[in-house]
């Protein structure tokens, strides 16, 4: 992640600032109190603090000109650019926008959602905002590491990932460190294993349902095999079942055949016995018939005698019945006569009573009509009288209201007058107090004028001092700029080159000895070790010379000989270094106009001192300027006091002043505040008094208007009453009572008439009832006589019918008896008895039921046998269709195939589950190896720290959650807190840089290395620059020279290429401070 731009407005002392960040090292420099830390705080606030948080009060502009506003653009990953816009203060707002190109932004979240989304993007271990979330400026391990405050540069040592409000920070670190530390071999194994797992399992862990999944193909095969096996099994079950049934049927057929044979035999035996029994039965039957014939003849003779006797009795009975029938006929005639008389009586009685009733009812109805008519008249009169009563009551109520209003008007008039008087008193007191206040203001203005004049003199003195310091600095700068010296790095490089040349030369210094014997006179000159030539002149004698590394001999006109010591490689190295010297060092010396590198060093030291002096002078000038800026606007203050004095003295009369002073003394008013307090008190009192006067006045007006209205209503009511009374004839006050009494009387009369009518109806009904009772009795007696006559006549008809029947019977019986042959009948009986004695007797009695039973049993057995045989045929037929042995064979095959497929599936399951288990175990192991963040991060930190401190410190113990343990010093573990402040800050810087590198994240360093010496500072600066090749670093500092070379500090066009790697940002040009015209409000935050 890196930051692209920051825009800030009305943020603490910063009125406005806009900064564009580079991708690598950004050195944001400026003098103290410029607002650097405010910008760092703004970055933290934009990323971490909710716009509605109370913590944001700290950001309020010191000059109250607007709500603090921050706009931060950042890139979380390539082409994912985010713009955070937050406004704090009275109208908090927040927006998060996303863009691919940094130009077109779309709103991603707003309001409260902004921080939630930001925390997802950052993954710094910060829980989502909510009621239970952290309050104020949230702090996590990573926010501390990446955005530590100026006074908390080493706060990282007190932190651990365990303190985070969620695990996102830890997870992010684990991912980053694991990705960095992943063994390629492990990765290769994991990839293969994952590929195998992917063949069979979906991402969810479920078995893959893809077409090419091994499960799918195998499952299809198993499904088909199962279906095949099921069908075969069903077929086999049918076969088995049919075979079993067939076996049962064959067994049953054998049983059934045995039963049938037995039944047939039993039937034959029974039929023989039955034939014998039939023969005997026939003989017995004939015997019985003969005997019966004989008995029948005797019986017929007896029946004839009995019939003759019965006929005589019946003739006598018929004569008695004829007599009784005559008597009954006479009685009936008498009853008919009585019934007719009773009916006539009832008709006469009914007509008479109906006439009487008609007469009485007419009289009563007339009376009722008269009563009802009078009632209607009376009701109308009562309604009119009740209306008059209602109007009278209304008039009385209005009269009471008018009296009440008259009383209230008097009361309100009194209150209003009192209030007006109080207001007049108040005006008088206010005039006195205004005079007192004006007098005091005059005095104060005079004092203020004196103070402002003194402050203006002091400011002028500081301005002169500042100008002096700046002039001195400019004078020194003029001398510094005139010299062209190499940079510190170049100088170091040249020094190293010089040293290498010295070493190379030393390697050539092996020691040389030369001897030259001229054969004739020669002019010789010798030069040793690059020194000055020695001219020996013309000589013929032996010449000898010693040198360390080189001897050059010039024989005039003949030859130049050069002898050099050292190996060839060493010579080449020396030559190469010398060439480098000529190319690199000599132009520098030439440009500087100096002879040697030592001169250059001396000149550089002098220049460094000059720069320090310039820096000191400019700081002094800045200090004076700052003091001036921090002063109030004394000129305006002076003018204001003068205007106040003039106002206070205008229009004041001396006599009044004496009066005011007397009043002030009386009221113990010594200052303006006292006078204004009294005035304020009076001012507060005035609205109350005005209200007190205004309320009765309003009410009074309203009461008077209401009173007038009510009086008008009263007159109308009284007129209405008189009109109503005159409309009623004979009106008097007790007329209503009289009418009511009369109504009651009429009601009583009406009730009496109704009762009379009911009584008349009752009388008529009782007269008719007696006549109808006599008629009922006559009708009953008539019905009784009629019944008795009917019964006797019926009895007579029956008797005569019986007599006729008996006469027929007697005639037939006489004829029959005359024909009977008793002798022949006796002979037949004897013959039958003889035959019976000769017939065979059966072994046992065979009844029809028994014989039927035996036949039925034989038939049943035969039927069952037929059924079984049919069933066997059917089952055999069915068996032919279901397969028999074939079904068994096919079922075996199908089961074997299914078993093999299941086995294959099991093998497949084990194999793929094994791949899945292996994948899981690989990830588990990787996870556990990777979660000890201390182990993973500790190495690089310790290595760097050891390099910085030249091995003085050993191992740094970091826990699994990056909690800082002890650091080894001289073989002993010590707490980090025991280190010097500078060393601890340096260790913290290494820790934070290393973390940021792993996360590939921006890191903000706010004056991190103020306590470091120059040697370590150089090493650390190199480290920062090295890290900045990979990550973005923002350094806020008031000492830019610690991080930037002079060339970078004052970039020219030639150095623009540095913008990519190192970007110096002069915040004095970027920050527009708020005008220092007003004092800083108390408690409005720290200085920037």
């Amino acid at each position: 992640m890196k930051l692209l731009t920051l825009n800030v407005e009305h943020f603490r002392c910063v009125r406005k600032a806009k900064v564009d960040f580079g991708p690598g090292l950004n050195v944001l420099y400026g003098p103290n109190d410029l607002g650097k830390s405010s910008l760092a705080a703004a970055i933290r606030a934009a990323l971490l603090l909710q716009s509605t948080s109370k913590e944001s009060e700290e950001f309020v502009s010191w000059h109250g000109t607007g709500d603090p506003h921050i706009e931060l653009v950042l890139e979380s990953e390539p082409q994912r650019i985010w713009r955070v816009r937050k406004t704090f203060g009275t109208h908090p707002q927040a927006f998060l926008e996303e863009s691919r190109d940094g130009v077109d932004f779309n709103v991603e979240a707003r309001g409260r959602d902004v921080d939630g989304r930001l925390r997802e993007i950052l993954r710094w271990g910060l829980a989502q905002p909510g009621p239970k979330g952290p309050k104020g400026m949230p702090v996590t391990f990573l926010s501390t590491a990446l955005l530590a405050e100026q006074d908390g540069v080493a706060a990282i040592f007190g932190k651990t990932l365990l303190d985070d409000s969620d695990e996102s920070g830890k997870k992010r670190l684990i991912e980053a460190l694991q990705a960095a530390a992943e063994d390629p071999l492990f990765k290769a194994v994991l990839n293969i294993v994952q590929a195998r797992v992917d063949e069979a399992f979906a991402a969810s862990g479920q078995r893959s349902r893809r077409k090419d999944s091994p499960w799918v193909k195998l499952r299809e095969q198993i499904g088909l095999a199962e279906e095949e096996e099921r069908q075969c099994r069903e077929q086999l079950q049918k076969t088995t079942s049919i075979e079993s049934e067939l076996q049962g049927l064959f067994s049953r057929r054998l049983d059934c055949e045995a039963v049938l044979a037995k039944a047939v035999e039993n039937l034959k035996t029974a039929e023989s016995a039955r034939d014998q029994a039939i023969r005997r039965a026939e003989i017995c039957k004939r015997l019985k018939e003969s005997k019966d014939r004989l008995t029948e003849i005797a019986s017929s003779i007896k029946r004839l005698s009995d019939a003759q006797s019965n006929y005589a009795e019946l003739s006598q009975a018929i004569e008695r019945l004829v007599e009784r029938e005559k008597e009954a006929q006479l009685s009936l005639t008498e009853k008919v006569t009585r019934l007719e008389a009773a009916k006539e009586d009832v008709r006469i009685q009914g007509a008479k009573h109906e006439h009487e009733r008609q007469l009485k009812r007419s009289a009563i109805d007339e009376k009722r009509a008269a009563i009802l008519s009078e009632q209607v008249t009376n009701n109308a009169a009562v309604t009119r009288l009740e209306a008059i009563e209602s109007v009278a009551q209304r008039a009385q109520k209005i009269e009471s209201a008018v009296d009440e209003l008259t009383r209230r008007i008097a009361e309100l008039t009194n209150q209003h007058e009192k209030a007006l008087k109080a207001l007049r008193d108040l005006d008088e007191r206010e005039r006195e107090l205004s005079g007192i206040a004006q007098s005091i203001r005059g005095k104060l203005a005079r004092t203020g004028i004196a103070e402002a004049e003194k402050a203006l003199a002091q400011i002028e003195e500081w301005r002169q001092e500042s100008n002096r310091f700046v002039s001195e600095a400019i004078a020194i700068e003029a001398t510094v700029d005139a010299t062209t010296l190499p940079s510190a790095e170049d100088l170091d490089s040249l020094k190293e080159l010089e040293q290498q040349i010295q070493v190379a030369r030393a390697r050539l210094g092996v020691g040389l000895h030369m001897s030259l014997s001229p054969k004739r006179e020669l002019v010789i000159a010798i030069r040793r070790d690059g020194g000055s030539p020695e001219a020996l002149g013309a000589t013929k004698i032996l010449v000898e010379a010693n040198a360390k590394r080189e001897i050059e001999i010039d024989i005039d006109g003949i030859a130049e000989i050069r002898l050099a010591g050292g190996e060839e490689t060493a010579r080449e190295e020396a030559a190469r270094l010398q060439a480098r010297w000529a190319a690199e060092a000599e132009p520098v010396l030439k440009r500087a106009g100096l002879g040697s590198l030592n001169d250059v060093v001396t000149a550089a030291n002098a220049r460094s001192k000059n720069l320090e002096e310039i820096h000191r002078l400019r700081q002094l000038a800045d200090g004076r300027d700052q003091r001036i800026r921090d002063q109030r606007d004394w000129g305006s203050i002076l003018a204001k006091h003068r205007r106040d004095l003039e106002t206070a003295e205008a229009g004041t009369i001396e006599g009044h002043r004496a009066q005011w002073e007397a009043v002030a003394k009386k009221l113990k008013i010594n200052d303006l505040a006292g006078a204004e307090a009294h005035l304020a008190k009076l001012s507060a009192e005035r609205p109350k008094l005005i209200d007190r006067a205004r309320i009765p006045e309003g009410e009074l007006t309203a009461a008077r208007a209401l009173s007038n209205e009510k009086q008008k209503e009263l007159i109308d009511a009284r007129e209405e009453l008189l009109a109503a009374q005159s409309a009623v004839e004979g009106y008097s006050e007790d007329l209503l009572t009289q009418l009511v009494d009369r109504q009651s009387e009429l009601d009583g009369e009406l009730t009496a008439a109704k009762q009379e009518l009911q009584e008349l109806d009752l009388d008529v009904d009782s007269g008719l009832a007696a006549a109808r009772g006599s008629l009922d009795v006559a009708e009953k007696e008539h019905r009784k006589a009629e019944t008795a006559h009917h019964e006797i006549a019926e009895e007579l008809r029956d008797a005569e019918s019986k007599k006729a029947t008996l006469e027929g019977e007697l005639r037939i019986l006489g004829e029959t008896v005359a024909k009977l042959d008793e002798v022949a009948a006796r002979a037949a009986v004897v013959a039958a008895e003889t035959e019976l004695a000769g017939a065979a007797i059966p072994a046992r009695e065979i009844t029809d039921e028994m014989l039927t039973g035996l036949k039925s049993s034989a038939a049943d057995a035969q039927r069952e046998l037929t059924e079984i045989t049919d069933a066997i045929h059917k089952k055999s037929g069915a068996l032919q269709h279901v397969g028999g042995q074939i079904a068994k064979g096919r079922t075996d095959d199908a089961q074997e195939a299914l078993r093999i497929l299941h086995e294959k599936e099991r093998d497949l399951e084990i194999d793929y589950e094994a791949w899945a288990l292996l994948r899981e175990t690989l990830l588990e192991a990787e996870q556990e190896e990777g979660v000890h963040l201390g182990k993973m991060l500790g190495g690089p930190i310790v290595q760097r720290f050891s390099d910085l401190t030249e091995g003085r410190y050993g191992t740094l113990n970091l826990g699994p959650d990056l909690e800082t343990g002890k650091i080894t010093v001289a073989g002993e573990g010590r707490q980090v807190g025991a280190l010097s402040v500078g060393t601890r800050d340096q260790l913290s810087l290494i820790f934070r840089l290393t973390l940021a590198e792993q996360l590939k994240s921006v890191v903000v360093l706010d004056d991190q290395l103020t306590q470091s010496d120059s040697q370590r500072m150089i090493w650390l600066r190199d480290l920062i620059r090295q890290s900045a090749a990979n990550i973005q670093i923002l350094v806020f500092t008031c000492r830019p020279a610690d991080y930037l070379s002079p060339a970078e500090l004052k970039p020219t066009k030639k150095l623009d290429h540095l913008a990519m790697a190192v970007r110096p940002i002069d915040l004095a040009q970027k920050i527009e401070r708020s005008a220092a015209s007003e004092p800083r409000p108390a408690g409005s935050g720290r200085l920037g």
Partner: protein
Amino acid sequence: MTTAEEQDVALKILHTADWHLGVRFSSFGDEDRTKLTRARIDAVDRLLGTAESYSVNAVLCAGDLFDTPAPDEHWWKGLAEKFQRRNWRDRPVFLLPGNHDPLQPNSVWSADHGFRRALPSWVHVVDRDAYEFPLSEEAVLYAEPCRSQAGSEDLASRLPLRSPGDQRIRIGLVHGQTFDIAGHQTNFPIAADAAQQRGLNYLAIGDTHGFRELPPRNTPTVYPGAPEATKFGELDAGFVAVVFFPRQGRTPIVQRQKVGLWRWRDERITSLADLELLRAEELGECVVRLTLAMDVNLAQFERIEKILDELKGNEATHGRAGVLQVHRGELGLNTGSGEDLESGLPEVLKSVVQRLQARAGLKDGAVARQALYNLYKTYKAVRGGPRALPGAATQTAGDGR
């Protein structure tokens, strides 16, 4: 048989049965299934060739020539073509419907079926009851077809009895199972003494897949068996019977003739050495059912996998075994202490081995053991050879390869 004997022969027949063309071999994979089904139709060629080489007078096919009554066109066409390629006007072939391919409407035997129409005239189908065909003046064939897949009737009992004075060689042709005990049988039972009862010189039957000759010798009843076995455990499959009928009513000579190529081997392997021995054998036309019943270490396990790959073949190479079926249910993987496996591994993989090792020792540790093997195999693949795992490499080398 000597020439004299041959001259004394009144009739030579080739008796075969149970071709089961179209049987599905559902226990095998597609490729193996193709091999095995093709082998069955190839066997028909060989047995017809045998008939030619013996110059038999007739070929009797005693049922179950197809596995189902209505086989796929592929099968009946293939068979018809085999007949069409021959010109056996004097050598009739008799095809008898068995219980697998009974004579039913819409079956391959129906008169209007394509198969029937494609058959040469000298190929006869026993498509009616009380079938009688004079093979020569001296010999007659009686046959009864199966009309259903199961039946309790003894079809041999329907064959006519020898008439007094009938001196011909009488041959019966039916399909069913002989039985020796009384009771109900549903698989077309044939009385063991049916040949004697019906006055037959030879009763040619089919159903049992292994070659079997039933006494008495003078009136033999013979199952020739299937020309190629259909499953493991079918003893004496792969034959036909060539029968010589001497004149003068002498006892016929039954000769068993091999026509099958494929062997069905059910092997239970209990050591790697045994597996190596098996691997060394010629298994080209062999159906091998391999039950691995042993505990092996990682290297041995890897060797087993390699041998199995070699036997089974892959997309690039043919397997050395004709058809291979492997059962691993009793194959145990012993991962030992895991120390050998760990040596030389990166720390994180060592940790993986330890974790899997801990689970491998549990009762249900098969998956963990397999996972260890998978790791072993994968790691070797990644590192490109056995040197990556010294312990395992030693074990592999110790196997002598």
